[in-house]
């Protein structure tokens, strides 16, 4: 089953890895930060080795987004950001795993202070009728 892991964050200034630019993580002892990074690297490596990682990208500053809307019967493009909220979509990973439990086990390792990690199931095109 496929899931998307969405990293919601607000690095200041915008940068990757986001942890280096999030106040809550900058304030952590160096040791703790290293541990967080190590956890993340090891889960990424494990996912690749197990054939669970399909892909992912780090995203550019939300201010660099272009937004396309429908306005007065026409398509209208404006500059971002899309939302003024505190957190923005900073990156995503697409995974394919055996079970919801495994998806949660993986995603737990992505969590870090000052950020929200969202695990969303992907829909698939098939289905069984009986």
């Amino acid at each position, binding site marked *: *089953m*496929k899931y998307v892991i969405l990293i919601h964050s607000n690095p200041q200034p915008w940068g990757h890895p986001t942890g280096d630019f999030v106040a809550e993580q900058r304030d952590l002892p160096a040791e703790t930060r290293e541990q967080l990074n190590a956890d993340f690297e090891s889960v990424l490596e494990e996912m*690749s*080795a*197990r*054939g*669970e*990682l*399909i*892909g992912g990208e780090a995203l550019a500053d939300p201010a660099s987004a272009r937004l396309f809307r429908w306005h007065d019967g026409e398509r209208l493009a404006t500059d971002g950001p899309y939302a003024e909220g505190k957190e923005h979509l900073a990156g995503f990973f697409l995974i*394919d795993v*055996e079970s919801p439990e495994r998806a949660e086990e993986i995603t737990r390792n992505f969590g870090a202070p000052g950020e929200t990690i969202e695990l969303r*199931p*992907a*829909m*698939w*095109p*098939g*289905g*069984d*009728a*009986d």
Partner: protein
Amino acid sequence: MTVEQVWRTEAPHVLAALTRRYGDFGDCEDAVQEALLAAAAQWPREGMPHDPRAWLITVAQRRLIDQVRSESARRRREERYAADALDGAAPVGVDDSLEVLLLCAHPALTKASQVALILRAASGLTTAQIAAGFLVPEATMAARITRAKKTLAGAGSRFPAPAADLSARVGAVRHALALLHTEGHVRSSGEELSDAGFSGEAIRLARSLWRAVPADPENAGLLALLLLTHARGPARTDAHGDLVPLEAQDRSRWRRDLIAEGVAILEAVLPVGPVGEFQLQAAIAAVHDEAASWAATDWPQIAELYRMLDLIAPGEAVTIGRAVAVARTEGPAAGLALLDPLAGSRNHRVAATRGHLLAELGRTAQARVALEQAARTTPSIPEQRYLNRLLHEMA
């Protein structure tokens, strides 16, 4: 047979021959895969060799030796292989393509890895073809197969499988093939459903399992089940690719040839006993397939078969099937009562079934809540479209 069918049929035999001689399943599998790729490049252009199996074994053997030579520890490994080869071939008592299946369904592997490995080692599909079927990139699938082979090597699995746990291992093969068949008709979308794909491959392998171990009646049960389920394939989706539930399927589109074959296999094996879960599931599928309509279905028999299935292989899917059948024989309220123990389940099929039964009882508001929950939680796009349509029609 097309040239591709020939090399795919030969693949497990070639792999078995190499593994028996050289011992290392992982290395041999890589070599066979390369030989298959060579066949794919040469046979269509230059014609099929006189003895395809011998051709593939020769090419695979050459690749295996090249591979071993190119490695730094080559002397040690060559010595080991030479020693293995001197041990001679293991006594042959079992079909060698069965041995490949048994190894692929090794208990150290996850179900998903077993299925991926079966498709490569026993079906002779390329990693790219398997990846396309599972809708993942080739690199992702390659990592899974590599890992599965490493796990096998780590588990010290040898060839052939020890006779002691043969029946348990054959059981694992059955479950892997059933999963492969389901993946085939569940994963693919729309027009792809007409293509046999993984489901057709599962049937081919179930047939060879049945031929290799005819004494186990569950092997006949599995083959019958797959044929009887596959028979409904053409009616499972409509022209738009939307899902058609069994209740509404155009039964004239069911494959009568597959139904006849499945029923014949089942009728021959049922009196043999013992009756296991695959025979019971096949019997349920047969009752559906032989009914002229949903209403004319022999529901008391289906309810009884599900009751028996619940005793030997209980699970949510069995409870749901039983509830549907009991609703037809004793009324929707009795069916609903059977679902009560599953009240806390997050399975969307439980919610969908509850919704249908509540609607029949005229408890429309509660039915809507259950169907909305099912529509929200199903991961299947066609199923969600179907449930949303149903909710729209109820409004």
